[in-house]
């Protein structure tokens, strides 16, 4: 089977997401589609899968133009999709998720459960997916959930399988297993489209690479003939710095100290299990871990959003364990939250208003009762200039900015004052490469000024690039505390997967 996209154009209000895109994929090959966030990769795949409808252009299957009015049509044409955010019903079993929409039924629409289990188990065995049809999805790890998604696609006899950012939520070891599955699919004659912004992975697995930039196909490449730097340049459109440039750290005394911190949720789940570590002045500590292993709760406990059951947090010796967020801010600790739309910005507020969101109540922005807006606007304009925030004006609502520029507003607000510590959670999630470079540089700059920096990220590459010391979290515990220059990706990966634990020295 051959699937061809010809001259696809898709416009959303204000943006052209896809502009005359051409793409071909055949069975038995792996095509990687790379591009930055917002380059139009997902839009293109949603068109291919019948979720969006192209304004122009056509989808051609084996020479015949097709119209996909809904995913049902795409499925019927032999196209399957594994979405970035898994499309699984958590309270259903594996088999229920797989057969949904194509249920084997008997009298009065009764689902033939045994038949469904048998079919699911059969395909699972055929591709080595090792899935239990009766397991409840919400109890399964992410890596396994992804295999359910793959099984769903195979169950519908897909010939072309589209993976949208499949490795974003996986541990390094799970990524290896995933690549093995991709190889098995390819060997079984399936065509694979692998959407990613991780260039290493594209180079590792693809037979061909197509590059998308600002909605346009800017070219294709043979992974055997191109290296990562060249590919990055194609993707971004200018030379890029892939490694964070930084001097050797010269850490001072411990600034931020966490001692025996224990946090329990209202449901009684222990999410931080007696953890201790220090962040020293002039040092970046990176917290690595698969999403959901207590990182969010750690940041909340440090920034005053969650009270621990026991343990202490101190900054330069003064206790801030039960401090409110305002007191944490006043202790000269900056917080870059993990979800900028939810807790970093007020989307409907202007850039200027967001810039003073933490300091509006104090001099010089407030005289105790009235806001001094002219001063606030003056400072905001300076910060926009200084931190390279690309915005039409400081009066533009923050929600109108791109992800990278929204993040820069937060970075500007948080880092533009005298600080003792920075707590940055997922500082570059969903941010374009150019902004990533810039934000990383700002974080390193803060370190060089003697600030204690804690960076929490589920992107292992980010932790490894920034950190002077790496702390690995697994199931609410710190399973390793390593010097960056004495460890590597694969060792940290093992700690992240819980396969290994550092013995206390």
């Amino acid at each position, binding site marked *: 089977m051959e699937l061809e996209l010809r001259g696809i154009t898709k416009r959303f209000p204000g943006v052209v997401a896809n502009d005359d895109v051409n793409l071909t994929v055949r069975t038995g090959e792996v095509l990687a589609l790379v591009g930055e966030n917002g380059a139009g990769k997902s*839009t293109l795949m949603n068109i291919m899968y019948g979720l*969006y409808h192209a304004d122009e252009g056509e989808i051609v299957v084996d020479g015949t133009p097709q119209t996909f009015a809904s995913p049902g049509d795409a499925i019927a044409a032999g196209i399957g999709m594994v979405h970035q*955010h898994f499309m699984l019903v*958590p309270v*259903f079993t594996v088999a229920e998720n797989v057969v949904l929409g194509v249920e084997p039924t008997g009298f009065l*629409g009764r689902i033939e459960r045994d038949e469904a289990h048998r079919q699911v188990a059969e395909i699972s065995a055929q591709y080595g997916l090792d899935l239990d049809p009766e397991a409840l999805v919400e109890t399964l790890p*992410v890596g396994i959930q992804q295999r359910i998604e793959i099984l769903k696609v195979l169950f519908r006899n897909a010939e072309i399988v589209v993976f949208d950012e499949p490795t974003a939520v996986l541990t390094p070891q799970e990524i290896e297993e995933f690549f093995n599955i991709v190889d098995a699919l390819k060997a079984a004659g399936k065509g694979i489209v692998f959407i990613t912004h991780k260039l290493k992975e594209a180079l590792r697995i693809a037979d061909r690479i197509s590059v998308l930039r600002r909605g346009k196909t800017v070219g294709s490449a043979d992974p055997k003939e191109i290296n990562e730097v060249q590919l990055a340049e194609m993707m971004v459109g200018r030379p890029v710095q892939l490694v964070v440039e930084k001097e050797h750290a010269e850490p001072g005394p411990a600034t931020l100290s966490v001692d025996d911190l224990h946090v329990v949720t209202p449901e009684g789940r222990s999410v931080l299990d007696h953890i201790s570590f220090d962040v020293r002045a002039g040092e970046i500590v990176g917290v690595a871990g698969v999403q959901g292993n207590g990182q969010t709760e750690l940041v909340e406990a440090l920034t005053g959003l969650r009270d621990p059951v026991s343990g202490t947090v101190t900054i330069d010796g003064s206790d801030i364990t039960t401090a409110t967020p305002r007191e944490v801010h006043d202790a000269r600790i900056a917080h870059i939250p993990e979800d900028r739309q939810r807790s970093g910005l007020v989307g409907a507020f202007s850039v200027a208003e967001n810039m003073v969101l933490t300091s509006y109540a104090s001099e010089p922005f407030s005289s105790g009762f009235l806001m001094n807006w002219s001063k606030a606007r003056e400072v905001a304009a300076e910060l926009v200039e200084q931190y390279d925030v690309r915005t039409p004006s400081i009066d533009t609502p923050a929600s109108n900015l791109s992800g990278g520029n929204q993040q820069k507003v937060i970075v500007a607000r948080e880092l533009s004052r005298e600080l003792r510590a920075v707590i940055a959670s997922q500082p570059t999630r969903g941010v374009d490469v150019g902004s990533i470079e810039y934000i990383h540089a700002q974080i390193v700059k803060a370190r060089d000024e003697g600030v204690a920096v804690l960076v929490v990220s589920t992107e292992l590459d980010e932790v490894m690039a920034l950190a002077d010391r790496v702390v690995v979290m697994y199931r609410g515990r710190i399973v390793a505390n390593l010097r960056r220059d004495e460890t590597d990706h694969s060792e940290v990966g093992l700690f992240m997967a819980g396969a290994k634990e550092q013995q206390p020295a």
Partner: protein
Amino acid sequence: MGLVSAPVDEPSDTPSSADAERPQRGGPPPTSVGPGEEAYLGTLGFLEESPENKRRARNIGIAYLVAAVVCLVVFARGDGGVSTFGISDDSSFSVAGIPLAWFTAVTLAALGGAQIMRGTGKWTAAAASVAAILFVFTFMAWAAAGQSFSLTGTLQDALKAATPLVLGALAGIMCERSGIINIAIEGLLLSGAFTSALVGSLTNIWIGIVAAMIASCLLALLLAWLAIRFSVDQVIAGFAINFFVLGLTSFLDSRVLTRNPDYNSVKTIGDIEVPILSDIPFIGPILFEQSFYVYTALALVGIIGWALFRTKWGLRTRAVGEHPQAAGTLGVNVIRRRYYNLAMAGAIAGFGGSWWTADVGRFNENITNGRGFIALAVVIVGRWNPFGALLAALLFGFADALALKFSFLGTGIPSEFLEMAPFLVTLVVVASFGRGARPPKALGQPYEQQ
């Protein structure tokens, strides 16, 4: 308000292509559930006592102690009469109120003490049930002191009073399982009651019932249209329908029905005695001397309960209510499924509304009198499960029947208080059992076909 706001799980989060990167709040992407969530339990092997749990255990204990004090202060100070509980025409048993009150008070105090000292763990629910039954029985003995009280009759009335609640709740479940909040059960019941009375008077009750089903079905489709086509807030749309139906039926009642008594007079439907089965002592009269509404409601509980968890329709309905995007990407038509379910829910509620007409033979202004809201509480307490809803409805039906009985007995409890009782029970039950209930995840969130 508590029971009204309870099903509104999360503020709806309008998905937009721009923030596809952002995990949906309260939304279902399993990635945010994380690998750890369940696994933590496995690793640590036990649940730690959180401050929340401790506080809860203590609060339950205090509730027991308060109940014990009520027993002593109120029930143990009655006039000391013996109350007689009839089981059938020729058998009954008697209970002396004061010793029973003392016994209950001591038991409750002991349970309360145990709960506060160290919690009752896995026995909490069982202990609560025993305590509740004992307390209610003591209350009955006190209120009926010196008189005789038909236990069979009360339970028969309880099942009867539970019937419209069951039907209303089934309508709610059909709706909410597919992801649309149904605050409008009250309005759907009321429109069913009115339509069946009017059409039933002009023709006969059976045609009236069909007309009621059609009328409420159309109203439910209006709710669906507002919620799906225009993404109107579903709570507000539901309330609007309630007030619209209340206003319209009151207006038509005073302008049309009151002036033309012929338009508001229906031959009621009598009870059907099931041969043989109704001769079983105690159980027989309660279960098998009832109207066809009771039998139909019980059958519907079984059918919908089976269909929801065993059939293709049920699987798709639940998928659409839990994670519509997942269903949509597999080619399930989310929007059509929601319209269908709302239409069926409307028909069931319309049938439920005709219960009043078939029972009393006429329509009165606001005849449903808030039962639709209790049905909503039944949905929550029954955890969106038809069988759970049946149990919850029986509880409320019992409170209803008891209130009715006591108003006849003339116990000195003000009738206003007795009328209030079912709602009071609703509040208490929802507050204590509603908290663990997990509504369908996508409840109230508009689905955007991309």
